[in-house]
Each structure stands twice: as structure tokens, then as C-alpha cells.
């Protein structure tokens, strides 16, 4: 009661402080959402794939960074292994798109359209590929450069027609684009290679045994089960700039702790006489420190509430302005930030509580 009434007594300051906290919280939520969006977008191609095994060139471990080149005819060897159902050869390479109003790089992915394996996780708009002259772009890329369905895109010496827009293919730094494997070979100039084989096994097949079999028949190949391959790519993704987002979020939290501690110290300074009165009147030892903590909790709770109200509209605005920024928010993130705020409230209260020791009831007797 006393804590809330103290804050409401200076209503304007309470509102301004809450807004300040809200902006810090929005920053943290935003960074975490970007982190998750980029993380998801970077590996969704793999996590959504139903391939049981991934076969790459030896010493390659992921498809995000690094080069993997395997002769396409090695797919025939894999196909002969009992238990193997479908082989999907996929070729990855980066390509620049240069046209009026567009100067970007895409992670071109050539896949076999007869099996459909190795293609986009989800077609957001339009259709799948049916011809070599077609391309599927990531929706964020398309939105950013105002490219729509049926638009023509120049890649190297070729021109491709946009037949579909995909989602789950945004890696923030650049985005996937999908073409047929045949077109990919023609653009690269090497028809006999692929980056990997995505291997789908028959029902009940022994994944471990088949992986061993592939390794023994293809000594220059690296074979990964789905989970291991996913982890490799997550590890690769996390070793990039993403940890920086997390660090910035943590710095934001530290700054908020320091600011809140300062605000609470100012409150104590201003309420000095009140606290001396309360001490003189026989308040229990924990009352005033408890009041300081309650003030901190009220401020962070009101800040969090405002942040939630601001965050979602802000994200919509950011995604409109910079479509390649893919933000994904989950209840878990919000709970994490809430828990973080709780800890921040407690830590920021420590220093101001120490100052309370230097407030004496004798100050009231002049």
C-alpha cells in the first residue's frame, strides 16, 4: 500500500519511469525475437525437411557456411543400399541479383522437382516450381525489393520468372531462393556436382546401419543423421553474429539494472524523512527494504505491461520497413524477460537498501 501510494504521489515521474523501463524491455524483447526469428529461419530448411540422413562432402558439417561438392553420380551408389527410399540431390550456391531497384544476394538452392525433396519448407504465396525458367523467392526478400509473382529476375545470364514466395527461408543476412537442379547446374557451369544428398529411408530401416553403409561405400562423404546435422547448423548459425544480439540484450538488462538502482536511490533520497519517521514509529526491520523492493517490482511490472502493449505493433512496423528482419516471439521469451525483470528488480534494490542504513530516526529531532 505504502509503496504504491508513494509512487502515485508523483504520478508523472511514475509514468515516465515506467515508459523508460518499457523501452528497455521492448529492446530486449525485440532482440530476443530477432534472435529466434533468424535462428529459426536459418535452420528451418533443415528442421522441416523429412530427410533421415544428410550426405555431404567429407569434412563438411553444415550447409550455412563452407562448401560441399559431391559428384551427382554418387547418388546412384546410395540408392542401391537396401532401406533407402528417396535420394534428393541439392546444390547450394550464392548468387547476386542485379536489376533496377534490386541489389541483393540469395542462397540459390537447386533441387529435383520430380521428387520435390530439398525444396522450400513452405510456399507462402504462388506455386511450386514446374519448369527450369522459374524461381521461388523468400517472401522477405521479395517484400523488401517489391518483387511479386510473375516478375522476371536476372541471375547471371539467365532470366527467371517468380512463380512462388517461400517462408521459413530467411537467414536475415541473406535469403534462400529455389530453382530446379538442372537450372542450377546450368548457372554454375558444372553439371556433375551437388552440395548434398538428402536421404529418405524406408519405414523401419536401420538409420545407423545405412549411414555406416554409405560411409563405407563413399569414403569421401560425411554422413549425418537429421538431429546431428541440425545441431551442426545451429552451432554454425550461433557462431555468427547472433550471439551479439544476445550480448546487446544482456547489456540492455545491465543498463536497466543500473538505471533502476539510480531511480530507487533518488526515491530514497527524497523520501528520507518519511523513512526516518517510519523507523522512529517502530516499523519492523524488513518494512522499509520491503517497500524499496515493492517499488522496484511495481515499476518493472508497469514497464513490462507498457512494453507488451508497444512491442507487437512495433514489430509489425519494423517488419514492414525492413522485411528481412524476421522476428519470432514466443510465450517462453516473454516469460524469460519477465523472470529477468524480477531479478533486475531485486538486484537494483540492493544498493538503495544499503543506503537505508544511514537514515536515522534522530534526524527528526531538531
Amino acid at each position, binding site marked *: 500500500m505504502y509503496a504504491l*501510494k508513494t509512487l502515485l504521489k508523483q504520478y508523472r515521474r511514475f509514468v515516465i519511469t515506467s515508459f523508460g523501463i518499457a523501452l528497455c524491455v521492448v529492446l530486449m524483447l525485440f532482440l530476443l525475437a530477432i534472435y529466434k526469428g533468424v535462428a529459426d529461419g536459418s535452420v528451418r530448411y533443415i528442421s522441416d525437411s523429412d530427410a533421415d540422413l544428410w550426405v555431404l562432402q567429407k569434412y563438411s558439417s553444415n550447409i550455412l557456411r563452407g562448401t560441399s561438392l559431391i559428384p551427382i553420380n554418387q547418388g546412384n551408389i546410395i540408392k542401391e543400399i537396401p532401406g533407402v527410399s528417396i535420394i534428393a540431390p541439392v546444390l547450394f550456391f550464392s548468387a547476386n541479383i542485379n536489376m533496377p531497384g534490386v541489389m541483393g544476394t540469395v542462397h540459390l538452392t537447386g533441387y529435383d522437382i520430380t521428387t520435390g525433396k530439398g525444396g522450400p519448407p513452405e510456399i507462402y504465396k504462388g506455386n511450386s516450381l514446374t519448369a527450369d525458367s522459374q524461381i521461388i523467392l523468400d517472401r522477405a526478400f521479395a517484400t523488401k525489393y517489391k518483387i511479386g509473382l510473375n516478375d522476371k529476375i536476372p541471375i547471371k545470364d539467365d532470366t527467371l520468372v517468380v512463380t512462388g514466395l517461400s517462408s521459413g527461408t530467411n537467414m536475415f543476412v541473406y535469403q534462400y531462393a529455389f530453382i530446379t537442379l538442372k537450372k542450377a547446374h546450368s548457372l554454375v557451369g558444372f553439371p556433375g556436382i551437388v552440395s548434398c544428398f538428402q536421404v529418405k529411408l524406408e519405414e523401419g530401416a536401420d538409420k545407423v546401419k545405412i549411414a555406416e553403409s554409405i560411409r563405407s561405400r563413399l569414403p569421401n562423404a560425411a554422413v549425418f543423421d537429421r538431429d546431428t546435422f541440425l545441431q551442426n547448423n545451429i552451432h554454425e548459425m550461433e557462431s555468427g553474429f547472433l550471439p551479439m544480439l544476445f550480448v546487446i540484450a544482456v547489456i540492455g538488462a545491465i543498463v536497466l539494472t543500473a538505471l533502476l538502482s539510480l531511480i530507487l536511490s533518488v526515491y530514497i533520497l527524497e523520501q528520507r524523512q*518519511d523513512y526516518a*519517521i*517510519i523507523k*522512529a*514509529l*517502530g516499523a*519492523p526491520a524488513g518494512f522499509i527494504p520491503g517497500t524499496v523492493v515493492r517499488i522496484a517490482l511495481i515499476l518493472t511490472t508497469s514497464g513490462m505491461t507498457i512494453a507488451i502493449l508497444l512491442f507487437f505493433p512495433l514489430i509489425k512496423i519494423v517488419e514492414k520497413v525492413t522485411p528481412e528482419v524476421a522476428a519470432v516471439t514466443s510465450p517462453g521469451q516473454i516469460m524469460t524477460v519477465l523472470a529477468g525483470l524480477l531479478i533486475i528488480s531485486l538486484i537494483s534494490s540492493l544498493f538503495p537498501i544499503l543506503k537505508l542504513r544511514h537514515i536515522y530516526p534522530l534526524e527528526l*529531532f*531538531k
Partner: protein
Amino acid sequence: MPETIQIAELVNVTKIYSRSGGETTALSEVSVKVCPSELVLLLGPSGSGKTTMLTIMAGLQKPTAGNVFLFGKRLQEFSKPELQQIRANRIGFIFQTFCLIDSLSVLDNVLLVMKFAGFAKDEALQRAVEFFERLEIKHLMRAFPQTLSQGEKQRVAVARALATGAELIIADEPTGSLATQQGMLIVDFLRKSCQSEGRCVVIASHDERISNFADRVLHLRDGIIQLHNPILS
């Protein structure tokens, strides 16, 4: 002869303050006892040691030498939580500058101390209203201290000091910020409270007119009791 129950007793108490310029002796071997149902006035000019005596009596500071007994127990034997309990339940304070909490209403100012004293909400409210009625400030219950006159503020402070049923009331210059008539009304109220409720009221003041209401007057000068006048028997 039956022994008088004491509320507080100072025995050869000396208080010396150490400052950068040297030492100041605020009290020098003073001995005094205060009992229920009496109003004791500590009279003297500024710097005579009145406030020091008050604060030692209330357990807010310890003497440099001598013994202090509060409700029959040596001050040094009280633990911090025990002293806090004593101040919440058995001692009431009235300050020259009223010392009301601005962010709380008049009612909440009184309910706060009653909460410290362990009163249940309903009982606290009932007692608070009772004292507001006696002090004729019931209409100000929802008001905030900044909107009150000096006299009204001091009456709220008196309500706060008495509502918990405190046996010892410590009043430091309670009339210092008030007009004469208002001040004397406050002291008169305290006097009646002494007689009807058996409280002990100790007032520190330089206002000689309060002597008219006191059972005993202790004249202090330079930390020494120079004269001890029992006024009323």
C-alpha cells in the same frame, strides 16, 4: 511505601557528542524517573539537553555513561527487534514539525503505525476513528497532510501517537509550530489523556506556559537538571 511503577528512568546518564571541533556534553549525570499518569515537562533553552534526554528516554540513542531503564528493563538489554516493538506498541511520538507522511492520507498515517503495533485492520480503523472524533478531525480522514493547517496536522500527529495505546508519549516541542491557543489545546488534550488513560507524557519545550499543565517541570541548562518542580500533586 509502595514502589511507584516507572515507565522510564535515567540513572546518572551522561551523553557526550564527538564532533570534528571537539566534544559536546549534552547531558551530565542526570537522573530522572517518569511514571504513569503524569505529564513531565523538560524546560530549557536550545542546547540545554532536552531533546537528548527525550531521545535517550525513548531508546533512540544510548547514553555515553549511566543507565537507562525502559519499562523496567535496562536499555542495553533490549535487542533491536525488541526496541522496534517497544516503539511500535508502547511509545508514541509527537514532533515539532509534525512528521506526517505526505503520500498517505490522514487515516493511512494513523493506520500505518497501528499496523506496526500489530492491530487488526478493523480494530485499527475503529480506534483511529475514535481518536479522530475526540480530536475533532474526523472530517479530515481522507485528506492529505499538505492540505491541512498546522493545528490540524498536529492533531493528526497526536492521534497517531495515542491510537496504539502507547504508555509513553514523547513530545519534542509539540507547540513550537503552532499558535498559542492551538498549542495549549494540544497540551491540554495530552494532559487529559494522561489522567484518563494512565499514560506518561514527556514534553520537551522552551515554552513556559506548558508548565500550567505539567505535574513536574525539570529545568535543564547545559545538560544538567537545575531545578525540579513538582507542580501538581
